[in-house]
């Protein structure tokens, strides 16, 4: 617990000195706000929450996956992780601290998107639920990528395509039915399904997102066993 908290605080201090990461957490909500105020609210043909949904899934993919992967890869590459382990930090404590912080950032982001959108209380609750679950999915996926990466560069190379697929597919799917069908297995697409029509099958969406989390957890567990198991035995 002590170690997890120390890593969490380290991450919190670091993000404000890391403009590259900080900007990703600010830019997508900011774009959603601007587009919603300037375009969606002044144009009756555009659904009021269109940009909120669009930017929310981009945020979930583009901000959360590479950030989580990048944190782990940087700490591995710079050998900081080695010192943490030598000080007695267990790998799962490290992951909980770092992942917990990114999750908090994801939750704050989700809250901001909720405030920007025009939701009833029930809709807001549904939106927040799918957002936070999706954030968790991104973080687990990002953690797996981070563990498997030798350095920051390879973490970036591996997480960017994933971020693009999960972040932008929902937007593309809105223009093409075939893509829309195929994309329905993606957690970020389910988020869009719910927000575009709050009467849609909510339990089904949650089940698909949970299935995504399950798949990512398996990938994560394999990565963890392969690369970090020995570390935890120390």
């Amino acid at each position, binding site marked *: 617990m*002590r*170690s997890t*908290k*120390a*890593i969490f*605080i*380290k991450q919190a*201090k*670091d993000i404000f*000195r*890391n403009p590259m990461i900080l900007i990703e957490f600010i830019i997508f909500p900011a774009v959603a706000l601007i587009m919603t105020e300037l375009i969606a609210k002044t144009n009756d043909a555009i659904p009021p929450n269109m940009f909120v949904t669009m930017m929310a899934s981009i945020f979930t993919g583009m901000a959360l996956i590479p950030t989580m992967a990048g944190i782990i890869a940087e700490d591995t590459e*710079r*050998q*900081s*992780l*080695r*010192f*943490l382990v*030598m*000080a*007695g*930090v267990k790998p799962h404590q490290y992951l909980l601290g770092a992942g917990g912080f990114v999750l908090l950032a994801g939750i704050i982001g989700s809250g901001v998107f909720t405030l920007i959108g025009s939701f009833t209380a029930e809709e807001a609750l549904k939106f927040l639920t799918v957002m936070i679950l999706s954030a968790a999915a991104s973080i687990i996926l990002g953690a797996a990528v981070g563990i498997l990466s030798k350095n920051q560069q390879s973490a970036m190379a591996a997480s960017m395509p994933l971020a693009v697929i999960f972040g932008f597919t929902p937007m593309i799917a809105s223009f093409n039915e075939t893509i829309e069908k195929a994309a329905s297995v993606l957690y970020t697409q389910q988020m869009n399904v719910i927000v575009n029509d709050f009467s849609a099958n909510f339990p089904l969406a949650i089940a698909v997102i949970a299935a995504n989390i399950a798949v990512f957890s398996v990938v994560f567990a394999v990565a963890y066993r392969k690369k970090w198991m020995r570390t935890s035995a*120390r």
Partner: protein
Amino acid sequence: MIRMQNVVKNYGANTVLSDVTFEAHEREIFGLLGPSGAGKTTIINILTKQIEADAGEHDTGVTTFETGLMLDEDGLYTRLNCLDNLYIFADIYGIPKEKAMQALKKVGLEDAAKRQVQKLSNGMRQRLALARAILHEPRVLFLDEPTSGLDPATARGIHRLIETLRENGATIFLTTHNMEEAVKLCDSVALLNKGKIVEQGAPAEICERYGAIKTVPDLESVFIKLTGVELE
């Protein structure tokens, strides 16, 4: 206290340590000397349980918590300041935050406490790495080439600090390929070449044994006599 007995380490077909046996006593400054690639870092990694030996026994006599470590890579968080880097470890160890400033004072970095690590000079970074190693007042300190790449004045400062730490009861295990440093600083040394200990004892004794005392004990010439290898 710290000892290795018949330790062997292979990387594939490459034998890095072939049969290493030595002992470092409590409250002494022990120097492991050898040229680049001799296996010094490998020995520290085995003693600190970061890698496993293929054969042999080893022991440091203390727990991980009682061990301090300074490696060839400093692993510092470069965007954070000096104090924040130490706070992380103070939190992990569960020791009071004031210890962080105390450690910075010991290495003479108190004026740079709030400075970002990426804006420090090499020597300052190295001193910060040392501050992190001594933060929790470990009983055994492993220092992998603590003065490499430092100017003589900074190196002397680190030597003085190492001596103070020993006087306060710590055991220091350091590696170096600087023979002069070893003679001046170490109570006892082991000479390592190609994964084998070729000689060990007090520096002056070893030099005497090999007739290498001129004006100052000349450990370097002993090493060359034994191995035919020059250090730098």
